[in-house]
């Protein structure tokens, strides 16, 4: 019987396990399906990680190594090359690996830190023939950065998510010709800094409000047809451009990986595709916590670390204090222009003085204000310049504001403010 099992040895799992250990939980197991700890950070060889948490700029492998070193100084157990097949509601963890075969492990508490995976061509249904040469950007990143294979020479990138932008630069540096980055929305899905240093620096055109309407090729990709789309994301006839290329990289979104959450009967949020969580990252099942990209897709690993420390510490309190869970909670609603909010539920009794909410918006705002409402009444507001869908926003809620909520429901809205 373990005290805590953490599923996933990426940045979320490592930070959660370490935080729980620091709080006094000693009997911890991390289960990782890859052959080493660190998760996707190992293939993210670019820099820009750690500015918030370590106050310096690190590459992905360096960021991971810091946490792996911290874990190695503890008595935390690690199982590598091990797949979790199922987690039951009463916290039995079914695993399989080469050495031990099939095992059922028992634990007092769990942290789900399985991360996310990429949307594929099938998920977005690009028309055309089905030749080789269509990769998700992250798969290409693993081939190039870890296995040493350049996946193509003439490349089109679909989607302007961060991994796509990073791969546009990476492929260029390794000698490939990146012809364009094509984005269906009128704005980029990636961080502004990545547009500048990955596309602009190498004069790679970013085609906004454009998409791939046909893939051509017999064995390997030969041509791609790109068309403009209107405000309803419908193809505009007569705007077709044909690119001769051999490779398409897809950076069209990430999906939290929640098969285990579903099996365990955790309540899921259809907006985030992750489990509902309370203010302390506890899910709908007491003693099962979740953090990182399995809950909602983050832009920065530093924020994953912060969230996971919260989850790990909360798991430690659950294990060590065994206090009764409060039954009263507030529901957080997605108001105007807000696509999701995490956490989705808040238990006031669990909050000392304030709590943090993370959310995303559905359009670009130059000047805006964030409104906290309950029953249509504005309880608090905060001015904010420049909010974009590609970047997660954060607000702090004080207990004073929460006290004003009368009907158990809180709404987060964003509205445009005209510049004076």
């Amino acid at each position, binding site marked *: 019987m373990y005290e805590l099992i953490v599923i996933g040895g990426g940045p979320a799992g490592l930070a959660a396990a370490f935080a729980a250990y620091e709080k006094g939980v000693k009997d911890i197991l991390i289960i990782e399906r890859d052959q080493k700890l660190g998760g996707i950070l190992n293939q993210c*060889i670019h820099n820009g990680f750690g*500015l918030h948490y370590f106050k310096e700029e690190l590459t992905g492998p360096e960021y991971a190594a810091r946490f792996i070193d911290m874990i190695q100084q503890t008595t935390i157990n690690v199982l590598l090359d091990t797949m979790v097949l199922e987690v039951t509601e009463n916290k039995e963890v079914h695993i399989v690996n080469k050495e031990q075969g099939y095992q059922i492990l028992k634990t007092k508490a769990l942290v789900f830190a399985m991360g996310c995976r990429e949307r594929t061509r099938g998920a977005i249904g690009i028309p055309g023939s089905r030749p080789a040469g269509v990769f998700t950007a992250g798969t290409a990143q693993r081939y190039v950065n870890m296995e040493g294979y350049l996946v193509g020479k003439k490349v089109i990138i679909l989607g302007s998510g961060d991994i796509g932008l990073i791969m546009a630069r990476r492929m260029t*540096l390794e000698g490939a010709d990146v012809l364009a980055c094509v984005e269906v929305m009128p704005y980029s899905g990636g961080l*502004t800094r990545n547009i*500048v240093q990955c596309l602009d620096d190498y004069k790679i055109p970013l085609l906004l409000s454009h998409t791939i309407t046909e893939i051509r090729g017999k064995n390997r990709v030969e041509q791609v047809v790109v068309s403009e789309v209107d405000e309803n994301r419908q193809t505009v006839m007569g705007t077709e451009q044909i690119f001769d290329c051999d490779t398409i990289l897809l950076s069209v979104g990430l999906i939290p990986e929640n098969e285990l959450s579903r099996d365990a009967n955790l309540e899921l949020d259809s907006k985030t595709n992750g489990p509902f969580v309370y203010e302390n990252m506890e899910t709908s099942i007491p003693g099962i916590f979740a953090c990182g990209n399995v809950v909602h897709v983050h832009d920065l690993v530093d924020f994953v670390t912060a969230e996971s420390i919260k989850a790990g510490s909360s798991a430690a309190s659950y294990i060590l204090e065994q206090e009764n869970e409060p039954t009263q909670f507030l529901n957080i609603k997605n108001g105007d222009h807000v696509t999701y909010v995490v956490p989705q539920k808040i238990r006031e009794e669990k909050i000392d003085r304030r709590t943090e909410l993370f959310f995303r918006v559905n359009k670009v705002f130059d000047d805006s204000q964030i409104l906290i409402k309950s029953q249509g009444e504005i309880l608090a507001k905060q001015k904010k310049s420049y909010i974009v869908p590609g970047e997660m926003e954060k607000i702090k809620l004080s207990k004073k504001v929460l006290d004003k909520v009368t009907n158990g429901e809180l709404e987060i809205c964003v509205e445009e403010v005209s510049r004076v």
Partner: protein
Amino acid sequence: MKKFICIMCPKGCHLTVDEDNDYRVSGNSCNKGVKYGKAEATNPIRVVTSTVIVNGGNNQLCSVKTADGIPKKSVLEAMREINSVQLKAPVKIGDVAIENLLDTGIDVVVTSDIQAS
């Protein structure tokens, strides 16, 4: 006036640099923006990250970075240099892969550990 988007952190401040006024930077929210704006208007630099072949290790590649920014115009030449070296396992984070890259005074350092196989 030159306009840049600061890349020193993910915030991406919109900077304006006044070349006629001692490269005065506005639009920044911290001091890094001042440094970046001035450098971008005079001598833009970039940190280059890539991989290097490692022989005799548990993985055939290790990741590397320039220990500081190098002139933006030298990035592609730097890549040719980085692709021409091979290391011998074991390598550790911080090991120098290339000393004084292209006479910039900046080293290329290893950013992932590879054990000898």
